[in-house]
């Protein structure tokens, strides 16, 4: 009786479509990352719709090109909220796009699930509408620092592209290794250039045991080629953002051999990650794709859990679908079935376990170390 009544109410509330959106960089500095994220979002929405939608309602997905630029982002998010009537906005790769759009989302009671790393985002007043699928950058720095300490060298040199990730990453790294007696030097460079000889020259002059790459694939490819040509003999480690398939293809097998990456993962080999590998047909997945997968799954499951497609409902149910006592779920279809059956679920994602602090940051992250062998990332 009660069940039927409640689902009847939910039906009424769910009349019409479920509308969700994404703000993604298709052009501008983030251009290389946005397209695969959009493609994945669409793929999952199509799956859900093919399986009958949520509570019998179709999911409508819209995305806007933020051009990696704040003005376009503000107009884009206004269009998504106002014209497309979305209840959640995903994507938000760059901080320059997330920072001015977060107040708009919060004001309109629309959930934002962002990748952007800037610390200040979570500290903004957002009434709980902000969630970040990306691992805290400081933690990434610490993880790389801990890996470096294990390698046992005397000094590390970091090359970081000037972006919102660079400073927290640098602090996490330096504060981890310096107290343990390992020397850490870093330089921050302008990633929009094509010539990094001076940067590489400065790095190699310090004769570091470990070289750390903390840029985007575009600039890191050029830097890595330069490092190879200069005949650097030490160990090289890059962030997950840097050492991607694109990076490996760009530098070629000869140059990439033996490079390490320490990156956040709910573990390669986690069910979600494997599922995503199957979905995309790729063995190696960069963090943006993994996060996009988590973003859309979280939003869709939260809607299903709430039986309501509003921003406030998504906000209030985001943590309920990560019930530690619930049944573990790695994909949206299984999750929807369980929810429809009235069961409690625990979604664990492809990039992280997807448990959030009150400010919207991830509680903790697991890191994995991979090593490039013959052009492929292998557990190292």
């Amino acid at each position, binding site marked *: 009786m009660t069940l039927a009544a409640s689902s009847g109410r939910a039906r009424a509330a769910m009349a019409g479509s479920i509308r969700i959106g994404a703000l993604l960089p*298709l*052009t501008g500095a983030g*251009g*290389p990352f946005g*397209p695969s994220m959009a493609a994945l979002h669409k793929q999952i929405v199509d799956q859900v719709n093919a399986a009958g939608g949520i509570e019998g309602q179709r999911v409508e997905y819209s995305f806007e090109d933020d051009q990696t630029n704040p003005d376009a982002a503000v107009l884009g998010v206004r269009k998504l909220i106002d014209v497309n009537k979305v209840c959640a906005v995903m994507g938000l790769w760059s901080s320059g796009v997330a920072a001015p759009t977060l107040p708009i989302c919060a004001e309109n009671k629309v959930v934002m699930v962002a990748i952007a790393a800037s610390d200040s985002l979570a500290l903004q007043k957002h009434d709980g509408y902000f969630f970040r699928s990306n691992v805290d950058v400081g933690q990434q720095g610490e993880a790389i620092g801990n890996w470096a300490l294990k390698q046992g060298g005397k000094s590390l040199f970091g090359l970081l592209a*000037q972006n919102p990730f660079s400073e927290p990453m640098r602090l996490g790294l330096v504060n981890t290794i310096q107290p343990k007696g390992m020397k850490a030097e870093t*330089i*921050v*460079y*302008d990633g*929009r*250039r*094509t*010539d990094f*000889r*001076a*940067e590489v*020259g*400065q790095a190699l*002059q310090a004769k570091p045991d470990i070289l750390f790459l903390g840029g985007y*694939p*575009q600039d890191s*490819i*050029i830097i890595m*080629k330069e490092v*190879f*040509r*200069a*005949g650097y003999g030490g160990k090289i480690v890059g962030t997950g953002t840097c050492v991607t398939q*694109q*990076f490996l*293809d*760009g*530098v*070629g097998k*000869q*140059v990439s051999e033996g490079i390490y990456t320490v990156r956040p993962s709910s573990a390669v080999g986690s069910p979600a990650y494997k599922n995503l590998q199957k979905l995309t047909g790729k063995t190696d997945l960069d963090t943006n794709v993994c996060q996009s997968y988590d973003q859309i799954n979280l939003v869709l499951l939260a809607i299903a859990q709430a039986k309501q497609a509003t921003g406030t409902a998504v906000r209030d149910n985001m943590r309920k679908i990560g019930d530690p006592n619930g049944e573990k779920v790695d994909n949206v279809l299984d999750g929807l079935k369980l929810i429809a059956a009235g069961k409690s679920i625990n979604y664990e994602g492809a990039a992280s376990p997807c448990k959030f602090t009150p400010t919207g940051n991830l509680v903790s992250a697991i890191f994995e170390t991979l090593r490039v062998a013959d052009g492929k990332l292998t557990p190292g």
Partner: protein
Amino acid sequence: MLQVFQLLVNGVMAGAILAVPAIGFNIVFAVLQISNFSIAALIAVGAYAGYTANVLLGLPPLLAILAAFLISGAAGVASDRLALRPLRGYGAIAVAIASLALNMVLENIVRFIFGNDVRSLDVPMMRDWIFEGIHVGPQAVFNFLVAIAAMVALFSLLSFTTVGRAMRAVADNPTLANIKGIDPEKMARLAVFLGMGMAGIAGVLLALDTAVDPTIGMRVVLSVFAAAVLGGLGSIPGAVVGGLLIGLAEQLSTLVVPVAYSSAIGFAAIILALLLFPRGILGDR
């Protein structure tokens, strides 16, 4: 001291490659009196033409460079004809602004076809040669030589051939050249072809040295403008001098300021230089 020498070597190598599109920019300016900012996109067109020839068709780098020269040159002429020529009567700045819009069009044609992914050309990676502690990369030397060869070929064309002399005559005095029976429109087309062809060559050289993506032209174009202006707009020897000076300034500045500032250094340098030489170092116009 060793470090300074290394930076000097790097600066000359980088400067020679900057000089190639700077010459392209200046040759167009000399004949048409127009700043064609779409040169950034034509660098990208050249880089992708080179990529197509080298990776997709399997041609060696030198043929890829030739292909880039022809395709960027042709794309330059076609886009100039369609987009810019109808505007020439309305002032140089109007055309320059239109060329910024044209740049957007061309860059996005490239993006539409090839996507945003970063790609590399198919050339073997070689370790640097080390002379007395100075690193010199074989690829960089190859690129340097190609840049020099391209410049020498262009100089020869302008100095020793009838058509080259005719083009210089138009650059010096269009009315007089017209009286002598030289068709200025034809010379304009040739200048755009050669200039944008040079941009295409630079695109492949950058691609060989680094990697290709649709923004490759935008990444270097400010340094190219700086080189062109510093040497003197419309001056071809000026572009060479300007390219070398900008290349050196960007490298040597890293001795005193953080590397992240090096692109600003190039421009700060030219602003200072232009206070002394308001028409550029070798400019006479």
